């Protein structure tokens, strides 16, 4: 069942069927020179079986959001506010199926039971995301045995099965190979296999194809779509590549400097973007049909230094619709502007 996620703003209680709902998440990194507010008030919802694309430039806080959900933010970063409400599997036997991940101890039993088993992560670096001194198979078996009560032999069989399922050739041999004996594409497939080995309800994919060549990219994305169809799991896809978003996502959240500036369905984002940043992003994509020698349209200015956040709306120094007196003084919040569409901008009060 591919559900559609209905996007709501902060303050609204989540409808009953959400799988994951993030409200006003804040993750800060205290450093000697100042506090980096990597995630500064992020809210979105994710429905079972849906695909939410999170898009934004490097440094906007997408990865930190993902790590916050999983509870693996690097020290000294910590979640300092907000809620991450996750609906656990009924079979997990927890009293209240909805749990606030932000409140759980990152290394505690409950968080670790969720991590890997119900929420899994696939991320960018296929080259070094497997341990160089352990076989690929042993790492997947470890994941399985951590969360399921089965014997090592059964776990190994499951590993081979899942490797086969993600399209790894000769899985019986691959299981005993080291990761450096596999190509980039195979490694990414193995990573996906490992993530899926416990049938999570939510898969977070953080730039899963950025380091791959275009052909492999397509294959991996197709694989993800297929697995989603078969298992009905939700995917949170983080990327800076709008093309990937267009192909995969049903809903999109656009992030800038630690905030969500616009949320909408994928059609709305591409055909009716409201926020100036979203519009600038879309404008900057080179067009196939443009005349030759036409200039590219970059976004003016550069991403501010993390210690030097602009006052008010974080985008205002680069915004073509900047309104002095308002945009540099007050902070906009996410407000609905249509069915399933919300924007954080003073152009839409």
């Amino acid at each position: 069942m591919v559900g559609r996620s209905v996007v709501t703003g902060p303050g609204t209680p989540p409808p009953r069927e959400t799988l994951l709902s993030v409200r006003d998440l804040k993750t800060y990194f205290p450093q000697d020179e100042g506090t980096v507010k990597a995630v500064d008030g992020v809210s979105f919802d994710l429905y079972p079986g849906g695909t939410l694309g999170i898009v934004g430039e490097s440094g906007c806080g997408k990865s930190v959001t993902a790590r916050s959900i999983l509870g693996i933010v690097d020290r000294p970063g910590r979640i300092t506010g907000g809620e991450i409400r996750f609906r656990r599997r009924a079979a997990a036997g927890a009293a209240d199926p909805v749990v606030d991940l932000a409140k759980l101890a990152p290394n505690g039993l409950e968080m670790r039971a969720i991590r890997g088993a119900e929420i899994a992560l696939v991320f960018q670096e296929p080259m070094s995301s497997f341990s160089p001194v352990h076989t690929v198979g042993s790492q997947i078996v470890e994941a399985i045995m951590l969360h399921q009560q089965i014997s090592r032999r059964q776990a190994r069989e499951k590993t081979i099965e899942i490797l086969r399922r993600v399209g790894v050739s000769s899985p019986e041999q691959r299981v005993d190979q080291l990761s450096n004996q596999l190509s980039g594409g195979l490694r990414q497939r193995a990573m996906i296999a490992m993530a899926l080995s416990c049938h999570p309800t939510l898969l977070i994919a953080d730039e899963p194809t950025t380091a791959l060549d275009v052909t492999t990219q397509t294959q991996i994305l197709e694989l993800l779509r297929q697995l989603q169809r078969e298992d009905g799991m939700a995917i949170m896809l983080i990327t800076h590549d709008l093309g990937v978003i267009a192909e995969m996502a049903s809903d999109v959240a656009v992030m800038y400097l630690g905030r969500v500036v616009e949320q909408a369905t994928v059609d709305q984002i591409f055909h009716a973007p409201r926020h100036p940043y979203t519009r600038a992003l879309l404008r900057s994509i080179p067009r196939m049909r443009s005349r030759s020698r036409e200039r590219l349209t970059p976004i003016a200015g550069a991403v501010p230094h993390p210690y030097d956040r602009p006052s008010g709306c974080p985008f205002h120094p680069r915004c073509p619709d900047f309104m002095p007196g308002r945009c540099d003084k007050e902070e906009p919040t996410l407000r609905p502007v249509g069915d399933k569409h919300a924007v954080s901008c003073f152009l839409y009060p």
Partner: protein
Amino acid sequence: MLAYIGRRALLAIFTVWAISVLSFAIIQLPPGDYVTSYVAQMASMGSVVTDEEAQNLRIQYGLGQPIYVQYLKWMRLIAQGNFGTSMEWRRPVTEVIGDRLWLTVVVSVAALFLTWVLALPIGIYSAVRQYSVGDYVATFVGFIGLAVPNFLLALVLLYLGFVLFNAHIGGLFSVEFQDAPWSAARVWDLLKHLPIPALILGLAGTAQQIRIMRANLLDELRKPYVVTARSKGLPELTVILKYPVRVALNPFASTIGYTLPYIVSGSIIVSIVLGLPTVGPLLLKALIAQDMFLAGTIVLLLGVMTVIGTLVSDILLVWIDPRIRLEDT
């Protein structure tokens, strides 16, 4: 793996040969003919060496013949177990050395063991809790280990022990066990006395290894596979110990080979300061008294023992994990 062992063994054989040559050089260095001085020494003590005996000695040691012949004769004697006679003690060298060689081994191995037992956890802790109080303390102690030469450390500790606690921390045995035959009680006594000399000997090495482990681990902790391990839901301790530590251990393990000679070397001087019944004080006395056979034999045996120890540790490492990548210089 077999090829690797074969190479190391071959190198070990060459090293032993080089040591034997060097030890022989030490024996030969002092001017004069060994037998002449032996006879003179005997005479000064009132015992007479007959001309015939002197001549036999000359033939036995090949004196008067070219040096390589002398060397070969000496090697042949050693093969028969005859390491010569100590001039000063007037007993066969093997008797004089006695237990001391084994005790040197024990102290050196203890120091090596302690180095590892201390350096690994401290290095790991320092890296995982970088900039914490524990990290700074460990770094500071490490600097002391590196900056203070081990015999000076021994001296200072001896002084403090004497003045503050009225205790004599030198020596490997309590008085009652010093010349006693070996027994379980004596072994236990030895173990009780080992920690301080082992610590002094191993401190510099420990400091070094802490720095290496910390640096290696800091590099590895940043790598993506650590994130992968965490994201699977493993407990943090397992994440650290099973993955980045395991990888950081590789270059670390290949440094053991050169720690043993360094420790054995250091034990000579430290055992002189602390008055340990090992080979060190004996060697010094022999050298000062120009008791060359004793000195040369000690050097030879020390060297051989070290080489064997290094070879054994290399083989053990490769056997434990064939994937250890060793520098092929």
